[in-house]
Every structure is written in structure tokens, then in C-alpha cells.
């Protein structure tokens, strides 16, 4: 019937609004404990970022200054906006064969959107996303980074 539908609408509307008010009222009373604002420059020492926060791409190096990058350019192909440029060279193996290897891993931080596609594409897990986020610099050229450490070489057994 029309009139019961009308009254039901009124009561349903009031009830749903009161549910919302209950939640915000609870928040207002518990704002000290529940607050989610990070007072960033003040809490720099105690700031804890989530593990999966994506700040920039870094290459993993172990204690012998060895990385796992084979120079396959899978990440360069996966990158949607040409952030990564891989320059390869040819190493001579002890058997006298020529082998393709990484020379320079160029990373343009200013182009990167932190989409994580290069990390997904990497077959040897050589790169990862780091938590650092304070990237502001005074010169744009400082955002062009070489990810492989000088003198580093590929770890044994990575193909």
C-alpha cells in the first residue's frame, strides 16, 4: 500500500542516517586512539612504512657485490613509459665463449610511476621496490640513476 511504503521509507532513511551518525560519533569519541594521520617530519625517526610500499626501484646486491641481473631486458620491455634502459656488454667466459651480461642499468626515477610491472617481469628477481620516498632534489639530472653498483658482477649460477 502507498502509505505503508511511504512510512517505511521515512523510517528506513532515518535509521540509515542514524547508523552513519553512530559511526562518526564513535570516531569523534575515540579520535585519540584511532587517528590515522602521520605527523611526517616530526616522526621521521619512528615512521614505519608498510612492507609493500613502492618508493623506487633498486637492484639487490649481496655482500660480495654481486647481483642477479642477466641483462635480459624483460623489465625494459615491460615498462610502460620507458623508465628503464639496459645497456649490455659481452663477457668472455673461461671456456672462451662470448656471454651477454649487464653493463649499466639506467633508471629514470622522474618517469617512473611505481607500477611494479618491471619487478613482476624480472625472471631472476634481481630488482625490487624500496621503501624510500624522499626523492626531492634540486636538479632533474639527479633523478637519473644507475642501479648496478660499480664493479658488481652477476652471481654464479644465474642464467
Amino acid at each position, binding site marked *: 500500500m502507498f502509505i505503508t511504503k511511504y512510512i517505511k521509507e521515512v523510517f528506513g532513511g532515518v535509521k540509515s*542516517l542514524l547508523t552513519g*551518525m553512530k559511526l*562518526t560519533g564513535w570516531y*569523534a569519541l575515540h*579520535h585519540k586512539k584511532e*587517528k*590515522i*594521520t602521520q605527523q611526517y617530519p616530526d616522526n621521521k625517526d619512528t615512521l614505519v612504512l608498510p612492507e609493500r610500499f613502492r618508493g623506487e626501484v633498486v637492484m639487490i646486491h649481496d655482500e660480495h657485490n654481486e647481483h642477479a641481473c642477466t641483462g635480459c631486458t624483460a623489465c625494459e620491455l615491460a615498462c610502460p613509459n620507458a623508465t628503464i634502459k639496459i645497456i649490455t656488454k659481452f663477457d668472455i667466459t673461461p671456456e672462451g665463449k662470448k656471454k651477454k651480461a649487464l653493463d649499466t642499468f639506467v633508471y629514470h626515477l622522474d618517469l617512473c610511476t611505481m607500477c611494479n610491472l618491471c619487478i613482476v617481469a624480472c625472471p631472476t628477481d634481481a630488482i625490487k621496490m624500496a621503501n624510500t620516498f624522499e626523492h626531492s632534489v634540486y636538479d632533474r639530472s639527479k633523478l637519473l640513476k644507475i642501479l648496478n653498483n660499480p664493479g658488481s658482477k652477476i652471481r654464479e649460477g644465474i642464467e
Partner: protein
Amino acid sequence: MPSLEHIANVIHVWLNNTFSPFWATLFEFVIVGTCIIGLFAMLGLVLIMMERKVSAWMQLRLGPNRVGPVGMFQTVADTLKLMVKEGMTPDGADKFLFNLAPFIAMIIAMVVMAPLMFAKNFQIWDINIGVLFFAAISSVSVIGILMAGWASNNKYSMLGAMRSGAQIVSYELSAGFAILSIVILTGSLRISDIVNSQADGWWIFKGHIPVWIAFVIFLIAVTAETNRAPFDLAEAESELTAGFHTEYSGMKFALFFLAEYVNIFVVCAVGATIFLGGWQPLHFGTGTKFNEIMDYIPSSLWFIGKTFFLIFVIMWFRWTFPRLRIDQLLNLEWKYLLPISMFNLLLVTLMAIMGWHF
């Protein structure tokens, strides 16, 4: 402790003994005007601070916390900034109306304060049509908004002003009906009579369900009348940049902002007066120990406390409810609030005739 009534009487007697009645009245006008302007400035600072803190708490943020202890002086700093800013007038604007509109908005907010009873026997003007005066003058505030919107020569301002006009004219009805239900129960339009009729219990307790319904409708209608979210279509940041005050800057913008918050104070004060007993303390039964303790609290504190409770509720509305579209807004008024409040008015009349209220 001297009450506000006592202080006002001392000043009145002293002025009349020292000067001729004409000059005494003139000095009283000046004193009242100064007090109202001071109250205006205080309300602006306190309410804007309160709004920002309440919104922050409800959204689990911190709110202003840098200027002064826990951000207390943030609004003072904002006001200083607005005062030194240049007040621009656009080339295509109607200069006279454009510069007049903020003052109209503010003067109306000031005039509405006249019949308010701030404490026991402490009132600027105990006019015998107090609530009618409030209803009449508060609906004039739409003229300031329309003037600002039209004179700005800006499509957003114009749209915001037209929306505001439709909104205030519609919601004036249900606010009027809600006030009328208390007028029926009291039998008087005079604010002091309405307050005195609540000495044995506030109308919200004495009036059963019809008065609760009237109270809720009053709250909704005044939220709409003061152009606040969820009915902030006149400003509508997401659609009209800032609605009727898009073109205003500096102190003229600050006056609009101030008028908005003072309007909130005034409507909440009226709500507290007619539904929550004005300055009357909370009493249960007669002659109990609880009543004596409640009587010990000054009447001005009761009034301010009730008013700020209602202001908090209206802020709670703003930071909880989703915004309405203009058609939903008018639907709510004409299809729901108006029929309900008309039916409710009949119920209240029946209740008053049969004497069912306490």
C-alpha cells in the same frame, strides 16, 4: 557571583542617574552594539575552530595543531590573513551591490540576535512577537545571498544564489511549522513566555512524540536554511567552486563566512530556547537535591551549553551525511518534511486542546 541580569541592571541604573533618559538610551544602544560585535568576533573564532576540530575527529585526522597550544590560535591567524588580503571587485560586477551584499548578510545575522534570551532576564529586546521576528528576519538572509550571486556577474555565483533561494524559501515552511507547534503549546510568541513555560520541564520532555518530531524537523530545516552540508547546494564546492561567494576575497569573504557561522549560532540558540528550555536548568521532579545542584549552575552557562550541543549536532550532520542533489533536496522538503510537519502540527494542536502534555 554577579549574574548578567545584575550587571545589566547596574549599568542601566547608573546611566539613568548620570545622564538624561535620551542619552542613557543612546549609550545603551552603543554598549549593546559593541557587545554584539564582540560576540560576533568571538563566535566566528570559536565556531570555526570547533568545526575544524570536530570534522578532524570524525574523520580520524588531527585538525589544526600548529598555531598556539593545540592549534588554538589558528582561526586568529586566518582572520589576520583575511584582513590584510586585498578585497577584489571584478570588472563586470555591479560594484555597489557587490560591496553591499556581505554587509547585508552580516547585519541580518546581527538583527536576528535581538530577541534571544542569553540568560535569566537578560535579553536585548523582549519583543512580543519574538519567534515570528526570528522566522521573518532569518528568511531575509536570502536577499544578501541573491544580491551577492547576481552582482558577481559569474555563472557559478548566479546558480548558487538561485539554488539558495529555492532552498531557503522551501525550508522556511517546515522550520516555521516546527516553531509553530511550540507556539501552540505555549500560547505566546514572546521568547520570555516560551522560556518561562518550560520552568517545570523542557518542551522536549513535556511534549511527547509530536514535539520530538517537530524538533527533528526543526534541526533538518535550519541546517538547510543556513546552507550547510548535507544541504550546501548554494556553495557546492564540487560543482560551483564556492557558489555565491566565488568572486569574493579578503574581508568581504570573511564577512560571509562569519555570517554563516553566526547564523548557525542563532538558529541553534532559537532551537535551544524553544525546545530545550533556554536558560532553564535541567530539573527532575520538584525540590530534590539534584534540582538544587542544577540551579547552582548559572543560567547563561545553561543557555550556552544547550546551544553548543545543538551546534555540535549540526556539525555532526555535516561530517556524516552524503550531500543531496537539488531535486532530492526539494523532494525531501515538499514530499516528506512538509506533509509530516503539517500532520504533526494537527497532533500538537489536539494535544494542546486536550491537555495531554505534562
